[in-house]
């Protein structure tokens, strides 16, 4: 059956009567032009944040961990909160590129490139936190199980923290490969259009001599499928193992069997929110409204309401089980979460993560760009609070009331966090200038099925009876 057909109930995913040539033209334009003033402003601002972050980290490494607000009771503060937050954000990219590829979701082609870039930058940001939390950062390589001259000093293979090292480094590698392999044909496109020698040379190198032969494409497709198959279990494993960092302990509030799936759902939730934040800006700045349509935004909002509700069920389950377990310490831990000194964090989490996404049950709001943009930021604030609640409020009231304490971050911790925003956006600005923000080759796969021009021609098929349609489908060659 070789009939290109998509039902009339689905809205077109590429508008503006595009042809293949027009798609290439539109997506390559920002790369071939000088960046706008807005781009420079944003880029310099990101660099400033990054600079402040570097300074903050330098300060911490030079003077020691004592410059942070963490203490003997609250040993994990903003650092691990930020780590989990950034890793979680990374998940949406892989979900879009891998899982939605396996599910044959055409709309992913409009957003996957930027989402995958976001994944890579987010994981880069995340990685900084545990590394610099080590204090003596020059010993960071101790986490690697290398044959060494340190005698019997090996990492503890029973520790979830070590599994994290493996999970995240593997995840980063595979995500990078996936992203890059998708970029190869697009780099070749830019190379072929290049007007300057340097550009031709550099994009030529980056595209590995891609010529676009049938064999090239065949290998490309096979590789995509293999990498998608690898990434799918990987993306689940990463946040599962992050949840193990907490759940393998016996600390009330951390030791919960629901943690693995609920962390994964939460990660996808926050990741999609971040994709929304970025793409709403990208489509506006680069005028990509024809490729990142309201349909895309609505589809992602549906994922947000679904994952937000899963997270909501998990929060309520945890709260209920703390009472139901009749374990005194569990009950106390949750009492302190909800009504204790950090009550504001708990309620911020509940409001932002459980209540606010429920607005997306309404189609009008799912398709409202301003509302979506605001809500995507609200969700990310909420997901930051989730990690803060899990980490800090649990640790602050430990088993020994005499050691209870209240934790607040100091300026180097704050600076470190802002610095990762600097890193993230510096990378993202560079990406959006030098790389095609939409996968040129991949979006063309969907053009003849979902492009508005082609969808109009399908009205003939929609008008047919089922028998006529079946007849035509079986004889179309």
């Amino acid at each position: 059956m070789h009939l290109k057909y998509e039902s009339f109930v689905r809205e077109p995913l590429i508008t503006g009567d595009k042809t293949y040539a027009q798609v290439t033209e539109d997506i390559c334009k920002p790369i071939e032009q000088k960046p706008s003033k807005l781009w420079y402003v944003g880029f310099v601002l990101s660099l400033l944040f990054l600079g402040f972050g570097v300074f903050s980290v330098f300060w911490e490494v030079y003077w020691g961990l004592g410059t942070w607000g963490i203490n003997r009771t609250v040993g994990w503060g903003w650092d691990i909160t930020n780590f989990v937050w950034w890793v979680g954000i990374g998940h949406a990219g892989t979900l879009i590129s891998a899982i939605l590829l396996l599910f044959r979701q055409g709309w992913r082609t409009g957003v996957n490139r930027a989402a995958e870039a976001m994944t890579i930058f987010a994981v880069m940001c995340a990685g900084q936190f545990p590394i610099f939390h080590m204090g003596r950062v020059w010993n960071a390589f101790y986490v690697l199980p290398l044959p060494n001259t340190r005698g019997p000093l090996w990492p503890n293979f029973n520790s979830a923290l070590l599994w994290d090292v493996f999970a995240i480094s593997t995840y980063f590698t595979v995500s990078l490969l996936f992203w890059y392999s998708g970029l190869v044909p697009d780099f070749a496109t830019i190379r072929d259009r290049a007007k300057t020698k340097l550009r031709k040379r550099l994009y030529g190198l980056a595209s590995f001599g891609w010529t676009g032969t049938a064999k090239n494409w065949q290998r490309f497709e096979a590789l995509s499928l293999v990498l998608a198959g690898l990434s799918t279990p990987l993306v689940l494993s990463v946040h599962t193992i992050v949840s193990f960092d907490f759940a393998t302990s016996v600390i009330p509030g951390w030791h919960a069997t629901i943690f693995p799936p609920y962390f994964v759902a939460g990660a996808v939730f926050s990741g999609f929110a971040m994709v929304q934040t970025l793409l709403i800006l990208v489509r506006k700045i680069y005028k990509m409204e024809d490729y990142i349509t309201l349909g895309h935004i609505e589809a992602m909002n549906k994922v947000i309401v679904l994952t937000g509700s899963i997270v909501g069920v998990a929060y309520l389950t945890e709260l209920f089980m703390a009472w139901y377990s009749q374990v005194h310490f569990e009950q106390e831990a949750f009492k302190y979460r909800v009504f204790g000194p950090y009550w504001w964090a708990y309620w911020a989490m509940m409001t932002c993560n459980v209540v606010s996404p429920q607005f997306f049950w309404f189609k009008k709001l799912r398709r409202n760009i301003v509302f979506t943009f605001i809500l995507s930021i609200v969700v990310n604030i909420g997901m930051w609070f989730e990690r803060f609640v899990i980490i800090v409020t649990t640790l602050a009231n430990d088993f020994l009331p005499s050691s209870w304490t209240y934790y607040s971050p100091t300026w180097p911790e704050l600076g470190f966090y802002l610095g990762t925003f600097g890193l993230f956006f510096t990378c993202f600005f560079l990406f959006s200038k030098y790389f095609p923000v939409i996968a040129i080759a991949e979006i063309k796969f969907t053009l003849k099925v979902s492009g508005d021009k082609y969808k109009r021609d399908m009205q003939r098929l929609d008008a047919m009876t089922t028998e006529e349609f079946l007849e035509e489908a079986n004889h179309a060659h």
Partner: protein
Amino acid sequence: MMTERFTVPAKLKTTGFALLIIGLLTLIAGGITLLGSANEIDHSRFWVSLLHNSVFFLFICVASIFIQAAASLAQGGWILAYKRIPEAIGANVWIFGIIALAVLFAIVFGAADHNGHNPIYHWTHPGDDKILQGKSAFLNPGMFVGFSVVAVVLWSWFGIKFRQRSIAQETAPKNSTKIYWGVIALSGAFLFVYALTMMSTIPWFWIMSIDAHWFSTLFSWYVFASAFVSGISLILLWVIYLKGKNALKLVTKEHIHDLGKFMFAFSIFWTYLWFSQFMLIWYGNIPEETTYFKIRMQGPYSFFFYANIIINLVLPIFILMSRPSKRNYFTLVFIAFMIIFGHWIDFYMMINPSPMQENWFLNWFELGVPFFFVGILILAVSNTLSKASLITENHPLLKETLVHIS
């Protein structure tokens, strides 16, 4: 207008009745010998087996409603070639719901040992057990009945409603999308109900409370995964059965392949949840949590404990990994039966160990009772299937399913 009628083959009817009668005879024989026995463990054996089967078959049928809701919300066109099958299963949820409610209430209100304690749901008589007293605001007969009845009524209603709306689409104006969007809204409502019943409270009440002291936050999601993968296998068995009778002419290998993928993926998903629950409890090693696995893993049930993993993870992974096996009717039927049996064992492992302790049985009674449910399933679903066309004519996504490539 394209229609396809299914008349129930006499052989299927006979098989259904035969299984029903075997099951019924087992139940009667069990009622006489086990309930009449002087040994109290025999009474428990009778009720536990009924509980196990009624809950299992209800849950795997409810999974058919869930898959319809999920496919509607995701606007999936792939399911339409055989959507009448989950619809027919979902529309019969009420039968299994009534049976389950009867069994559950009989146990909660009827079962008692010589001390007047409930041998299955200990929480009905907390006595001076501090933990059970503490839980009694939730674990009490009133709450149990309330949640159970509301859940079963809502599931049954949605099951029937989804099928009605789907059939109404056939006679709606051509390419009308009114019902289509209506069903999407209905699916959203169902998901909400499902989250508050199947994904949380109902497995706590019906299954987890059998180990009345034990708790696990993941438990209901785990039960869902087990029921869902079995539910998909059940749909697949019907699809292939009908295909074998030269019905379901719109279904191609592409559609069958999709179901194979689902069985593969959700077997892994089930394992993921199994592992999450088991590993965290094992690693934490807190007595009030490990008690659950103590008897299952190291006690008299250890054989089933490992069989559970082999049947539900190892076999599906290796058999369904390759593409050709997901397109081969024989392999799929074999693995679907394996998965349903495997998860039946999984439910056995959730329900049996606490009341039966080391006195476990998997004998004539335990193996005979499921036939009662299978018999009902065959008769009810085939009868429902014969009442409407097998083709979801005029569905806005139907044409997509005709050119579907898995």
